[in-house]
């Protein structure tokens, strides 16, 4: 998230509370647990790393919410590098897969039942995500983000269906998988 805060400063020097408001608008319901002080902690870290400077302070200089931050040349370079970087979060499916393998091997639990429990949870999350998307104003930037969350959940649910097929026919065959 440090990178995202830096990139937002590329538009113009801003107050912490402006940055926070822009983040909240872009994230919609996904930004709800972001607490008030976090943006200042992040800005202080970026300042320490020489990526931003406090350009000026309106009013009382001791109050962080009055400081206007700007990118340093190093900060600009970091933003440019971040924009062209092709990173992507890893799908974390191995742990659940291993849970099914171990449960079946030790006869601790029925893998099909574990899959069903997981499906119930993901369906509730999908429902919550879709309802949040429908509740957003249509022009909100968060709609497309929520669409991404819904599509990933759908992909995970389809993978669970594949797991169920594999474990309901396979018995011990899957042990080495």
């Amino acid at each position: 998230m440090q990178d995202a805060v830096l990139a937002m400063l590329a538009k113009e020097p801003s107050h912490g509370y402006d940055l926070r408001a822009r983040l909240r608008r872009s994230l919609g319901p996904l930004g709800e647990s972001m607490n008030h002080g976090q943006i200042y902690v992040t800005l202080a870290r970026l300042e320490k790393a020489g990526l931003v400077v406090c350009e000026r302070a309106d009013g009382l200089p001791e109050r962080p919410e009055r400081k206007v931050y700007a990118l340093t040349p190093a900060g600009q370079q970091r933003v440019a590098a971040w924009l062209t970087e092709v990173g992507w979060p890893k799908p974390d499916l191995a742990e659940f897969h291993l849970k099914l393998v171990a449960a079946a091997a030790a006869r601790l639990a029925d893998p099909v039942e574990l899959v069903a429990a997981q499906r119930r949870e993901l369906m509730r999350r999908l429902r919550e995500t879709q309802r949040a998307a429908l509740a957003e104003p249509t022009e909100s930037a968060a709609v497309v983000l929520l669409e991404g969350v819904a599509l990933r959940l759908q992909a995970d649910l389809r993978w669970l269906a594949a797991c169920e097929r594999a474990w309901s026919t396979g018995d011990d065959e899957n042990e080495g998988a």
Partner: protein
Amino acid sequence: MTSAVAEARGLTKVHGRGESRVPAVDAVDLEVPEGQTLAVMGPSGCGKSTLLHLLGGLERPTKGEVWLAGRRVDTLSERALARLRRRSVGFVFQAFHLVEELSAAENVELPVLLAGHSRREARRRARLLLDRFGLTARARHLPSELSGGQRQRVAVARALANEPRLVLADEPTGNLDSAATLDVLRVFEDLRAAGQTLVIVTHDERVAATADRLISMRDGMFVDDTRLTGAATGWLGGLAGLEG
């Protein structure tokens, strides 16, 4: 019986004869209370569409009972069954099944006229329903002039035209691309919020996730029956944060 809008007891449907007899629906019990939206999922051939046809009186069970709005329907004559279907059940199909020669508005008016109401009443209901689903500007268009999402919205409007106690939808997004699917998701969310009792058979997780309750079917039987409602988990709010 109870106040359930749809109810089934020991419901069984066997297809085929002799050696090749396969139960498509195998002794299931089901109660759908007033105002509930129920999604039924399962692999193709699990019996979910047959279940829907039995609930709506489109097919007769081999064994067991079906009750609709407090009336037993599996023992009704063809005529009485057709009348009950027209008044109490609205159907939404994968292939829309609109009358191609009639405009969007006329498609919605048709079941109202068939139920014996005046032309004026039919027009009034069609106007309200097309407006509700954002189709006012398309009222005079033929189905062939509408997009897939618009056609399915017309089909939902038609299903609601006789203010049915129960709406049954069979793969309502099966023929739609993802943008049109969102349109239809919005419509089902609207029906749910309005308290419409609804049973949707689907392979689309996103459609199923609009429902209050989810049943999973395998080989003609229910293998899972779960409520999707409940307090928000707060899960979404934690997905993005400055520390992440």
